[in-house]
């Protein structure tokens, strides 16, 4: 009978010496293990705006908004902290060598207002030179051009984007001809306009 009591006593004394397992957070900062999965953070320099992360996210925690009405069309990619489950699928799917979005160690994400629980980055958007439809982010077109190498030169949308990004042709160049025909072919076009310019040659 005495034995269990002594055993418990040993544990109690040990607990007194060792102290509680819990840390003193928030008075002392907590350091999570390096492998901890915390808040995903975008890197606007690496991200090309392809939205693969939005596509794979199981919790629909990533959204985007295309702002096309200004002179400077932008794609706003938004990550919602309140819905994110920190699974890391976005990082795993990121086409920019998994560096466009990365899970950080940040865990202290409490907020009072749900509306503030979002972070966003903006990427320059490329619009169709004829109809103004969204094609892709400028960086994404550049990324494709780099990936496929010289094959780029089979597609005016790609090589024009690439030449513009290299500064070989003027960033703001647009053709004055608006005939929706042959001369339009050498422009940055959306898929629909490309088909129309190819089919309706006058």
């Amino acid at each position: 009978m005495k034995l269990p009591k002594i055993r418990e006593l040993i544990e109690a004394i040990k607990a007194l010496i060792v102290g509680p397992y819990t840390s003193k957070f928030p008075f002392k900062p907590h350091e999570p293990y390096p492998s901890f999965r915390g808040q995903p953070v975008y890197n606007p320099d690496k991200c090309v705006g392809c939205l693969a992360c939005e596509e794979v996210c199981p919790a629909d925690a990533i959204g985007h908004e295309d702002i096309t009405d200004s002179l400077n069309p932008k794609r706003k990619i938004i990550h919602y902290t309140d819905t994110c489950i920190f699974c890391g699928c976005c990082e795993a799917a990121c086409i920019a060598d998994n560096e466009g979005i990365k899970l950080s160690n940040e865990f202290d994400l409490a907020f009072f207002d749900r509306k503030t629980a979002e972070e966003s980055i903006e990427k320059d958007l490329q619009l169709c030179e004829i109809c103004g439809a969204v094609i892709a982010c400028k960086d994404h077109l550049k990324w494709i051009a780099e990936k496929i190498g010289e094959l780029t030169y089979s597609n005016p949308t790609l090589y024009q984007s690439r030449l513009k990004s290299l500064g070989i042709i003027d960033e703001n160049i647009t053709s004055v001809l608006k005939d929706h025909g042959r001369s339009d072919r050498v422009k940055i076009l959306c898929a629909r306009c490309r088909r129309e310019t190819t089919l309706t040659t006058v």
Partner: protein
Amino acid sequence: MAKSVIPIGPYHPLQEEPEFFTLTVDGETVVDIDIQIGYNHRGIEKLSERKTFDQSTFVIERICGICSTNHPFAYTRAVEDIIQVEVPERAKYIRTIIAEGERIHSHLLWLGLAGHFLGYNTVYMWVWKLREEILDVMEILSGNRNSYAMFKPGGVRRDINAEDIPLVIKKIDSIIPTLTRLKKAIIDDPVLHARLKGIGILTKQEAIDYCALGPTSRASGVARDVRKDAPYGAYDRVEWDMIVTENGDVFDKVVVRILEMYESIKIVKTCLQNLPDGEIDLNIKDIPPGEGIGAAEAPRGETFHYVRSDGTNRPARHKVRAPTFMNLPTCKTTVIGETVSDATIILAGVDPCYCCTERMAVRSIKGKKLYNGQDLIRLSQEKTETIKKKMGIK
């Protein structure tokens, strides 16, 4: 004495499946028990059909907050069964490590709660402190204390870094001395003997008849364990024993769970030490039309998943059966004939969550409220005190 009806519930989320117990009591003795399940329907199976095969894993992981790995384990096995592929060896080991780590923390959690119900709040705190080590191990390995996000059809999402392994093994080893002290403290504590032995007995035949699973069946002498019966993961590559005891009472359920933790520790350590090199993922692209089944031994028993694919990237049908579904009806034999103060711990014997007991309510037949969940726990704790007094222990 007039019979009284005691509703326990209506929300009684015994892990995955909330249910509603109505206890009919004659004085102190339970004469009947009725169980209803189906509350808190979350539509998980439908949700899973809305997501892609890959995304579904995360929904499935959230069926249960405690055994959050065995559902994806069974699900990914079902998907792999459709394609008829074997995951890479390294992935199998990693899956096993995560699943066993989860078993340790789940059993510890249960043990702590059982202590609380019995009025052993020291055990409760002691065990939960011990559980922190395991949760830290899981954080090192998977990046989170729970909801590990490790599984995917075809393999695992994250590799285990070789440099983390020594720390993990050290942490796991560190719980063994305390666990052993705890085991001794529980197994030769005369009060616990008096309190738990012979309470809520599920005989071997009843366990077979009710198709009881997991520790509930193994405590009754039915050697039933998916890990041994149809080995998956790396369970057939490591040495471990199935823990089976004969009495089927609550005490044996405690013993089975404690001893199982040692086996789990053994499995995790062997797997970590013998982690084979190689790929961790098959990178499955297409899932052909077909049907697949998958089973995994969760801490509470066999989890079973059925998945049908129609060739698209989403499951056409997904069916989940959690272990509690089979274990719960056993209380029809275990609780009847026992006293109200024992009902809490017997129901807890199949391994419920805390919130269930919190919401227990006791009403007399006229609908006048007598006790709530707190009172039931108090009743249970008082019984322990009475036993202690009788035995002359302070």
